[in-house]
């Protein structure tokens, strides 16, 4: 409908859409925009005559073919790295996942036991050894790096070596700790070796590594790789190739038309960065972006005003809980004066009407949490009953524990000490702050005095790490595999580590033993049984009140046709997302044409 670089023509659409109020609004918008541009040109400062080439269709072949189009995603922050072993942010992961490839990808069910549900990606096929202590992956014979060099088994072995090398200091290294080695059987076959059999052998090899090009990265000293300039221009083997990264502004990828899985259906992917959430959403509403990965409740209501847009919801791996500190913040050798008693923790859990709190904060965009795992994890058992909401029961329990309101000031005391504590929340999370306010009111009902403390994120994390907190609105983004994240957040070993993520210092040997047992079950049903027992144990110990899981609601332009949304990565199948030829707009017409920069 529009020529590249020209002013959008003021024409009526031949579709019936123009008769709708929305179409009239759009026409008015086009008219206003054209008028404004004409006026701005007339002022002379803007040399509006442009180039004749501006008005030529840049890639008419692309515009009419089945594949084509540009998808612009608006995100709140820049990527940190684009090289997988160093990536820690969501944005970095999105781009690294698309530019690089895993050997195999899990299905949306996110099974992590064995290879059930996995589909081949960079690997064409794999073979388990008879004793299951090795898996041989055959690299796809047509796989190529984006610079044209073939991908080989040496690249696979190199990736493992680089990621696990202590000099690299990759956050992914612990995830590969159960793999003994990776060897090269022949130029196209890499073999993963294990010292013992365990359920997630395949998951670790296939999911935890994105394969890197040896010929590019081998020349850099591992200890200097994090700061090397070349890792800012990644050369991968994924369905989109890297074009440019303008820090703080955008990242651009373009389709690899020679990819062994076939040409992506979109030509180009762009991430634009808007640090302010409202401004980011405004980009979607104004038509400057096609996709935003997270919409808050008010923006979901607003999106209904734009017939061009729709929402796209998916499960997520994020959950939020009130994390109790079980040790005294002033002297960690002693139990916490309030939360050291499991009875008090239980009573407080009984005082929380989670259903109404979640409904209040999220309406239908939050799900009641089921415990330390989330629904999207394939081994999660969602049938464990939580501690029920029972105000009278909570009061009676506190009475029986000796916490009574002797002076009738509304706050219970025991041995002269009030039932008072602080709940901390990061000031960057409106939802967590709102939830903390509701909890404050609910705890007041049972005679507990809560002070809210909203802190800037780094300060808040530092407070938790140093154990100087009473209770915190903590959040976790979990892995599809429950093993690592469960151990890091709740195991005794993590509690003993001063820098561990078990900030509340919860420790129960029975829980640890059950998690250990679950992690070696080769049969998913058996693993689920052990996880259930472990979760019943921890939920009885109440080291936290698990509050809610987020439902991820994205905003998307209707012209984009998404497929295969996965809880851990909405972008997993982005190579198959498409824009119908009759739905394309000006920016879709660029095609694959490179630009001289």
């Amino acid at each position, binding site marked *: 409908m529009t020529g*590249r*670089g020209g002013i959008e023509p003021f024409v009526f659409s031949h579709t019936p859409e123009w008769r709708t109020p929305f179409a009239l609004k759009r026409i008015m918008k086009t008219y*206003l*925009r054209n008028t404004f*541009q004409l006026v*701005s*040109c007339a002022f002379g*400062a*803007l*040399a509006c*005559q*442009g*180039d004749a080439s*501006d008005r030529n269709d840049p890639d008419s072949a692309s515009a009419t073919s089945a594949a084509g189009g540009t998808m*612009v995603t608006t995100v709140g922050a820049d990527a*940190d790295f684009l090289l997988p072993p160093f990536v*820690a942010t969501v944005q970095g992961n999105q781009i690294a996942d698309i530019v690089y490839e895993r050997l195999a990808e899990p299905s949306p069910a996110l099974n992590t036991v064995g290879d059930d549900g996995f589909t081949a990606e960079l690997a064409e096929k794999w073979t388990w050894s008879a004793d299951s202590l090795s898996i041989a992956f055959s690299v796809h014979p047509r796989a190529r790096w984006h610079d044209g060099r073939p991908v080989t088994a040496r690249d696979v072995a190199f990736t493992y070596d680089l990621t696990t090398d*202590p000099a690299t*200091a990759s*956050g*992914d290294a*612990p995830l590969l700790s159960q793999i003994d080695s990776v060897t090269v059987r022949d130029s196209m076959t890499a073999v993963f070796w294990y010292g013992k059999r365990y359920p997630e052998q395949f998951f670790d090899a296939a999911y935890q590594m994105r394969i890197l090009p040896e010929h590019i990265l081998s020349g850099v000293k591992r200890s200097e790789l*994090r*700061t090397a300039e070349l890792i800012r221009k990644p050369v991968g083997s994924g369905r989109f190739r890297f074009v440019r990264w*303008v*820090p*703080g*502004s*955008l990242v651009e990828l373009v389709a690899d038309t020679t990819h062994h899985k076939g040409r992506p259906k979109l030509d180009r992917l*762009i991430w*634009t*960065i*808007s*640090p*302010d959430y*409202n*401004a980011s959403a*405004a*980009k979607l*509403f*104004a038509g400057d972006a096609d996709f935003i990965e997270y919409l808050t409740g008010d923006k979901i209501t607003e999106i209904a005003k734009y017939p061009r847009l729709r929402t796209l919801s998916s499960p997520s791996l994020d959950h939020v809980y009130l994390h109790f500190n079980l040790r005294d913040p002033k002297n960690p050798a002693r139990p916490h004066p309030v939360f050291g008693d499991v009875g008090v923790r239980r009573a407080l859990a009984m005082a929380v009407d989670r259903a109404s709190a979640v409904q209040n904060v999220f309406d239908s965009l939050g799900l009641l949490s089921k415990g330390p795992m989330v629904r999207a994890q394939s081994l999660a058992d969602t049938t464990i009953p939580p501690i029920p909401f029972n105000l009278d029961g909570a009061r009676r329990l506190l009475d029986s524990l000796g916490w009574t309101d002797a002076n009738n000031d509304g706050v219970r005391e025991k041995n002269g000490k009030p039932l008072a504590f602080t709940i901390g929340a990061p000031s960057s999370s409106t939802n967590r702050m709102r939830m903390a306010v509701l909890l404050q009111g609910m705890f007041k009902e049972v005679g507990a005095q809560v002070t809210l403390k909203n802190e*800037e*994120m*780094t*300060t808040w*994390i*530092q*407070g*938790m790490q140093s154990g100087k907190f009473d209770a915190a609105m903590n959040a976790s*983004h979990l*892995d599809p595999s429950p093993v*690592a*994240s469960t151990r890091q*957040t709740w195991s005794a070993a993590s509690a003993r*580590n*001063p*820098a561990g993520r078990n900030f509340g210092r919860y420790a129960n040997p029975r829980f640890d033993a059950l998690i250990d047992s679950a992690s070696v079950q080769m049969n998913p049903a058996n693993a689920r049984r052990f996880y259930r027992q472990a979760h019943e144990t921890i939920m009885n110990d109440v080291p936290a009140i698990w509050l809610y899981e987020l439902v991820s609601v994205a905003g998307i332009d209707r012209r984009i046709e998404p497929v295969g949304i996965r809880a851990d990565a909405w972008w997993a199948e982005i190579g198959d997302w498409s824009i119908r030829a009759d739905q394309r707009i000006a*920016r879709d017409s*660029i095609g694959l044409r490179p630009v001289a*920069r």
Partner: protein
Amino acid sequence: MRRFIARRLLASVAIVFLAATFTFILIHLAPGDPFSAAAENSRITPEIQAQWRAAYALDRPLPEQYFRYIANTAKGDFGYSFSQHRSVGAALADAIPNTLLLMGVALIASFAIGIVLGALQARARGTALDRTLGGVSLFFYSMPDFWVALVMLLIFSVWLGLLPSGGMTDPLMYDYWGFGRRMQDRALHLVLPVASFTLLVSAAVARYQRSAMLDMADQDFVRTARAKGATERRVVVKHILRNALLPIITLLGLAFPLLLGGSVFIERIFSWPGMGRLAADAILTRDYPLVMAVVIIGSVLVSAGNLLADVLYAFADPRLRRS
């Protein structure tokens, strides 16, 4: 005058050094460090975090870190930015021109419009025009900058669709356009952030200008000029306006650091990759080297702004020049 400038320059060096030292201590006293936020990521183990700290010498005693920093800075090496994952020099080299463009245009527009509005109000003192302009400027002056920016974005970008919603250029088409269309695109992307900033700052300038002109209008030399038969235009422009520029020069000196410091809210809301955003992100992520570099640049500019204001005073007021 030369001796005066030399003395001020020496004092500026001391100010910059003190500001850098003070900031170094303050930022290290703040809770957390550049790798604390990694604790939110379940994949990053404490051991890996410790390794990162060691790699950047953050595990060394604070005095050692300080002397290393000062020594490197003296050689022109601002270090490595933990949040940008590249050298601080590269990060600044990208951000400074962007902020210069935005704030340069915005400051020129703000002062030009503010001075004209203030002069108009002073001339029309007590009239409906004066009251209307005063009310409007007070309204914008009292508005929070982020609110004004968001409302502008909502009206002109989302509702009317007249202007782009953010960024410096169109993220995709810009590189495919010819020179003329590119210039137009850049100008269009400048309109909303510049207009938001100008609305706020020009309101303040106008109020200062009006007040200064009214003060001058009652001075003896103005009466003398009129008595000598000077035209009203000459009295206003040559005698009142010129002398009323002194407080505006002070204001300009104070605003000068914005040229490189940028405006955090305007840059955040309009996704402008400038120094304001860079500084805010650096503080939030405890990016010590970047915070230090921004502070050093800021203190250099504050010193330069004050020096510039003093020099401009001398040009504007012959009495100061003679003294």
